[in-house]
């Protein structure tokens, strides 16, 4: 391997950049990459950013039980959160329940978790899904765990902000209800993204390459962040380069 960083390290660094300017970021269940990214962003911010990692004890300051995350979100005290999905469509609808006609789905996934609520309330929801294929990026999700946009009378201070996949970085325009490709990760191409996406998205004539992680970032990731994320995600931490 000639690459000086792994694809996971790139994704962590990309997500950490999206958290600039946030005051408080929370990461949810089954979110090792966002968890590592939030902890990295905290390091880079010099500790100004507050981070709560669900599933951690040390990196979790909640004292009012599982409901506290949702109460904080409803009060506007969380700036960014992460959601994924077995399916994501071009309107940023996400499906965490299953593929096929609900309830008799052909493939069942764990369930909607807090998405049906947090997608409405957290200003910067970052969609993260490493697998970027037509299986995931579908024309229309089979089940809406949470919709990308809502009618104007629905209370909705939050919603989709960016989408990070294994191939590139997208922004979501809530007014136009469309994704726009912002950058392509090193080693991939716009054509590859088009070929692997089941929906239309906006694509500028010139798309930049996602910047590689700085060496100082890699050093943090392989040292302190690797240790911190191990508390909630021991298997993931072991898989990270050291």
């Amino acid at each position, binding site marked *: 391997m000639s690459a000086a960083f792994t694809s996971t390290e790139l994704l962590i660094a990309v997500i950490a950049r999206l958290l600039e300017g946030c005051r408080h970021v929370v990461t949810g*269940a*089954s979110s*090792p990459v966002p968890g590592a990214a939030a902890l990295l962003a905290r390091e880079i911010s010099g500790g100004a950013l507050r981070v709560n990692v*669900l*599933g951690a*004890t040390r990196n979790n300051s*909640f*004292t*009012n*039980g*599982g*409901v*506290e995350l*949702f109460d904080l979100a*409803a009060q506007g005290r969380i700036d960014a959160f992460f959601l994924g999905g077995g399916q994501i469509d071009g309107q940023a609808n996400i499906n*965490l*329940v299953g593929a096929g006609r*609900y*309830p008799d*789905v052909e493939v*069942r*996934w*764990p*369930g*909607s*978790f*807090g*998405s*049906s*609520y*947090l*997608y*409405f*309330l957290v200003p910067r929801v970052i969609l993260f899904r490493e697998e970027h294929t037509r299986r995931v990026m579908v024309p229309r999700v089979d*089940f*809406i*765990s*949470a*919709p990308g946009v*809502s*009618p104007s*009378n*629905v*209370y909705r201070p939050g919603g989709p902000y960016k989408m990070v996949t294994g191939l590139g970085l997208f922004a979501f325009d809530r007014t136009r209800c469309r994704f726009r490709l912002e950058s392509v990760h090193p080693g991939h191409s716009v054509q590859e993204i088009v070929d692997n996406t089941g929906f239309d998205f906006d694509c500028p004539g010139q798309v930049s390459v996602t910047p590689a992680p700085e060496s100082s970032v890699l050093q943090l990731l392989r040292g302190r962040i690797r240790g911190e994320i191990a508390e909630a*995600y*021991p*298997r*993931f931490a072991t898989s990270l380069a050291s």
Partner: protein
Amino acid sequence: MLTAPLCDLPALAAMIPNGAQLAVPSENCGVAMAATRELVRRGVRGLHLVCVPVSGLQAEIMIGAGLVETVETSAVTLAELGPAPRFTAALRDGKIRVLDSTCPAIHAALQAAQKGIPFIPLRGLIGTDVLANRPDWKVIDNPFRTDDPIVLLPAIQPDIALFHAPLADRHGNVFIGRWRELLTLAHAARHTLVTVEQITERDLMEDPERSPGVIPALYVTGIAEARRGAWPLRFGADYPTDQEAVERYVAAARTDSGFRDWLQAWVAPRPAQALA
């Protein structure tokens, strides 16, 4: 002799009847796995399992063993180990009914029961297929504002809450520390059954540092001592998940017969705990 509410594990499990609405916490809090094994041994049937707000290995095993008729949950997941195989198989074979929910809805519905009110409003949800598939949830117009639709959820008052905690005293007070959802759960449920790592001779209410993290005996119907009672799952800072044991489970549970063999070994009487 154990005096109420203290009892042994089989007696604790015997307090959960067929068809009960049983609420259990996520793996972030103490999951009563030793008690779950007793429930499987007893062959309880027809449970309405409420996961607060998600579950993993516990729901997976109870569903695989045929204890569950309905599961109300925001997710069933084995986290880093991937999908829960018996949950997935039971859904595919139509053996269970799933009431798909979302985490804050389960928390809020328990809070309604805690307050003794019939329903509670919750933001979000509008336009989701979660809401579309829950005829028991309603959308109303905010009566205090115009053109502001909001969802109402009926209270969830479980028949029984079951979880694992670090410590209890002989009066029936249970120390839960930071895991406040267990307090809400105990307030909401008709009966609370707890397994604990340890029973102390001291009165937990007399310790001002501990008492704010205590569920008072008022809410507690049964307590059984079960050392390493969350095993093979992690229990706070006391012990981590036994990854090897859980991985053995996942490997076995890929097939129905693999799961049956695993289950038989798990419930067999034995002096020492071993998962496979």
